[in-house]
């Protein structure tokens, strides 16, 4: 083999390997290009990766984004309270309405069940009382279910609103300031209607009824909890009249200690007829 033949052989060996390698690379590039160009093929490759990443991300949302979302929501709610209230109001309203109607339904069922116990001694007693007193049997049952109770009594000087004496089951806000405010409210309402000789008779506050009973120089404000029916209001007014007579008889209107002793003695023992 001469030199030329040797060179030719070497070229053949070298170039054949290079060509095969180049062809191989070219084929791979073609497949890659095809994969990138054709959506379906690209999807087949990428989708599993994205899916895995998404699953991992979803699983880590509570830990990674929870605090940020909570904080953002807090800020947004604080910034737009009115909008939040507006959005929640109908939902809350419906819930409350549903709850109340449910409670009323239960109450009605209870009243009916009690009313049907006609043969029991209590039932007969109630029926007889209803005939004699003119109070409906159902009203009696209702009154018994949520007994009215005198919580606080304030004897307040008319006009000035100065507290003359009080009785209360538990401590409340400043009695002197409360007496002043009650008098201011009473005065405001009576003034607003511009009719003389008429008095504000009650104020409803949360679960309390504040009954106002006017006398010549003072008025008695009584905070009553529970079901305070007109019958009980009549009873309370009769009781107030008796207490007032006792105050006049003993002439203790300006003697706070004696007055409060009398109020305690009387109102702590006050029981309405349905109790």
């Amino acid at each position: 083999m001469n030199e030329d033949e040797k060179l030719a052989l070497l070229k053949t060996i070298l170039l054949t390997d290079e060509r095969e390698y180049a062809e191989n690379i070219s084929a791979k590039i073609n497949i890659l290009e095809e994969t990138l160009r054709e959506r379906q093929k690209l999807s087949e490759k990428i989708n599993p990766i994205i899916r895995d990443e998404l699953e991992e991300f979803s699983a880590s949302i509570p830990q990674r984004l929870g605090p940020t979302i909570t904080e953002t929501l807090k800020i947004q709610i604080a910034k737009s309270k009115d909008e939040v209230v507006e959005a929640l109001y109908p939902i809350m309203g419906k819930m409350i309405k549903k709850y109340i109607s449910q409670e009323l339904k239960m109450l009605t069922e209870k009243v009916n069940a009690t009313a049907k116990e006609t043969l029991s001694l209590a039932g007969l007693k109630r029926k007889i009382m209803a005939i004699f007193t003119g109070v409906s049997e159902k009203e009696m049952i209702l009154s018994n279910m949520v007994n009215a109770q005198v919580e606080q009594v304030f004897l307040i000087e008319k006009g000035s609103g100065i507290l003359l004496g009080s009785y209360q089951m538990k401590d409340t806000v400043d009695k002197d300031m409360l007496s002043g405010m009650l008098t201011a409210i009473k005065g405001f309402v009576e003034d607003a209607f511009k009719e003389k000789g008429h008095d504000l008779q009650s104020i409803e506050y949360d679960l309390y009824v504040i009954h106002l009973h006017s006398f010549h120089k003072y008025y008695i404000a009584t905070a009553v909890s529970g079901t305070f029916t007109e019958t009980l209001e009549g009873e309370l007014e009769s009781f107030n009249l008796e207490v007032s007579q006792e105050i006049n008889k003993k002439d203790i209107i300006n003697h706070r200690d004696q007055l409060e002793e009398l109020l305690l003695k009387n109102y702590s023992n006050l029981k309405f007829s349905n109790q």
Partner: protein
Amino acid sequence: MVSKKIVIVGHFGVGKTSLIRRFVEDVFTEDYKVTIGVHILKKTLIVNDQEVNLILWDTEGTDTIEDIRKAYLLGTHGFIFVCDITRPSTYENIAAQKEYLSSNFNNVPILSIGNKTDLLPKGSISDKKEELDFLDMLVSAKEGNNVNRLFERIAKLLI
């Protein structure tokens, strides 16, 4: 212990609420909040060895006393008429206003006072006092000058 109703009256922004807050809570704030209706506070004082419970009715500012609801003024034991010494319009008709109070509300004691002495140049308070000699006292709700003396004075008049 005796309780006495004191009603504080006067024009808008003369410092009625600030005066009461300085006396009752010993605080002062520059924020001006309009009083609507009436606000009631109390403080107990010892005057001549006797406890006096002052029930303070802070009324909303009005141009004339007649504009205040009568219901708020009934049974008052003493009035404090507050003026702003830097605004003459708040004390121009003081004599007529005091006359109205005296004739309609049992001739009870009335103290008329000028508030905001803190706004006067230093050393000019005595000159102002001479100029506004129809006022019983000059006070400053902001700095607290004379505020306690004012309420002690009216309490003494009532017992």
